[in-house]
């Protein structure tokens, strides 16, 4: 309920118990009878327009409408909409929804009705799918009585489905990765030095990707390094602290190859190429055989490394 309104229980109620009885006449009566049968009918004016919902007179000319009722819809186009983040108790839905003007195919005018866009928390902003021009269909009530509420609400046409997608694996990382993770489980970052080119590969693969030769000489690297390049991510990821987050290539001191890691502890728009960072380890009691032991890398505060020194590690 909007905050501007007075709260508290009413001490006076104006009501016709059971509802006020109204006759509907032949035009609205025909429409409501067809509606009860699950059909949308418009009425034709003398100049050929189709009014929906039907009324007795042509609003332009003032003439009686004809007695020709024509099928319209059931698909319609939204011509304007408003979004109710906090429904009133008098509203037809108790979760956020849209009011929409809907012009059914074959009609020249629009009907006002509620448009259910799905499940949202109270106070939600309008969903992006909700657009003027979107195509919608009525959701009929099973028990119909001959009232505008025989349409419970409208709902969007089906434009998407959600396809199930899941496969199960039992993966082995391989011996080199196994050894690397063993190091990580003890708080160490281990790499291999290549006998041919001398560069340190971390995490090691047991091979030098440059020379194509096996490697086995272990080297322990410090937890400090330099951001060579990075990306700002705006889609949430369970491994990241919040959106936006930064994933970066980090050249550990002494390493010849970069590794991919999160950078945090600094606003995303302040991360720089050449920025000095250090590993932020989780508390020792939380360590497992996983890279998650390093929560992310954080700035050290040292001066940035000149671009020339990292340009070969992008």
């Amino acid at each position: 309920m909007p905050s501007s309104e007075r709260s508290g229980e009413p001490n006076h109620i104006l009501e016709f118990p059971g509802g006020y009885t109204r006759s509907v006449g032949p035009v609205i009566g025909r429409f409501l009878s067809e509606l009860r049968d699950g059909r949308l009918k418009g009425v034709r004016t003398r100049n050929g327009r189709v009014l929906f919902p039907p009324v007795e007179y042509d609003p332009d000319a003032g003439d009686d409408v004809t007695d020709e009722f024509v099928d319209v819809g059931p698909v319609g186009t939204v011509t304007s909409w408003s979004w109710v983040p906090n429904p009133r108790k008098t509203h037809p839905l108790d979760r956020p929804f849209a009011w929409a003007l809907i012009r059914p195919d074959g009609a020249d005018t629009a009907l006002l009705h509620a448009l259910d866009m799905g499940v949202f928390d109270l106070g939600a902003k309008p969903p992006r799918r909700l657009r003027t021009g979107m195509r919608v269909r009525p959701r009929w009530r099973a028990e119909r009585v001959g009232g505008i509420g025989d349409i419970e609400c409208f709902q969007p046409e089906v434009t998407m489905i959600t396809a199930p997608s899941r496969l199960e694996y039992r993966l082995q990382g391989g011996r080199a990765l196994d050894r690397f993770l063993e190091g990580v489980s003890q708080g160490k970052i281990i790499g291999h030095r290549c006998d041919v080119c001398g560069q340190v590969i971390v995490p090691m693969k047991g091979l030098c990707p440059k020379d194509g030769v096996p490697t086995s000489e272990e080297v322990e690297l410090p937890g400090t390094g330099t951001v060579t390049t990075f990306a700002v991510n705006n889609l949430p990821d369970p491994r990241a602290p919040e959106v936006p987050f930064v994933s970066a290539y980090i050249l550990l001191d002494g390493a010849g190859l970069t590794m991919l890691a999160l950078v945090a502890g600094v606003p995303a728009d302040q991360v720089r190429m050449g920025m000095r960072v250090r590993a932020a380890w989780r508390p020792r009691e939380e360590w497992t055989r996983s890279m998650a032991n390093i929560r992310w890398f954080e700035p050290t505060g040292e001066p940035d490394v000149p671009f020339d020194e990292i340009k070969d590690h992008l």
Partner: protein
Amino acid sequence: MRPVAVVAFAQTRHKGEDAGLSETELLAPVITEIKRRTGVTRFGFTCSGSNDYLVGAPFSFVSALDAVGAWPPISESHVEMDAAWALYEAWVKLQHGEIDTALVYGFGKTSQSSYPEVFTQGLDPYYLAPLGVDQVSLAALQARAYLERTGTDERRLRAVASRARTDGRANPSALHLDDPGDAEPYEVAPLRPHDVAPVTDGAAAIVLAAGDKARELAGRPAWITGIDHRSEPHQPGFRDLTSSPSTRLAAAKAGGTGGVEVAELHTQFSHEELILRDALDLGDGVAVNPSGGPLAANPVMATGLIRVGEAAARILDGTAGRVLAHATSGPCLQQNLVCVMSGERSDG
């Protein structure tokens, strides 16, 4: 046409919350004040505008007559509309030529109910009211249509609301509302709370007089040079909500808007000002709602009459030569009244 003018205007210091006064108690001081200012205690005709649903009691407008004094019996009428339409009825009565003065008043107290839901009960009972669609939701449909058709940014709505609130703080009768916040959530998108006229309790009265009687009662009467009202289909889905052809037509029938310096518009939602400016061809040089307008005080059923009163006051105090007042009724600016007034008497 018989020359008819607004010769006096009075209104309450409107309140944004229930101050414990009944509608009649709200109205009585305004009637007393306008009788004192004009020196007239008996009027040729009395006409009021109000809404029984605001207090949920039938014929509640009748008890308001206690504030007027109706004995010996007076010639009286009432419209279940904004009192701007009561003013129109009184103007027609004055055109008949049998009376020279008329008292017009309106009053509204929205603090006791949910006005957007009361409004629902005034909608078509077959297609609209059963849905429970309320006034703000309907207005938001029109706002959306206008914003999309014109490419207008929602920030322009905020600018309208901000100016209204600034002007309202300079008006002792209006509510004194803070500037709109930067990130207010939507009330009904695309409208935010500041785009919606506030809950208000208040009343207003105007005295109309014809010909020489007007000169006798006011030094500079606000002569009504044109007044007209027009309506569009009730169903919002039958209309182009991005414009207000009934306002445009009423303005043309009222003699056009040329030379207007001040326009008081019945804008209960900020986008309505943009639509009405278009329909009335008001240039940037026209001061719109210098009183703050309905976005700064909306005692419904008096709000439209107050537009006439605020505009006329600029003639009466000599600060403007030609002014326009607008009033509206129904969903999404369905029915519109335009009243043009001038310091120069028109016998046209």
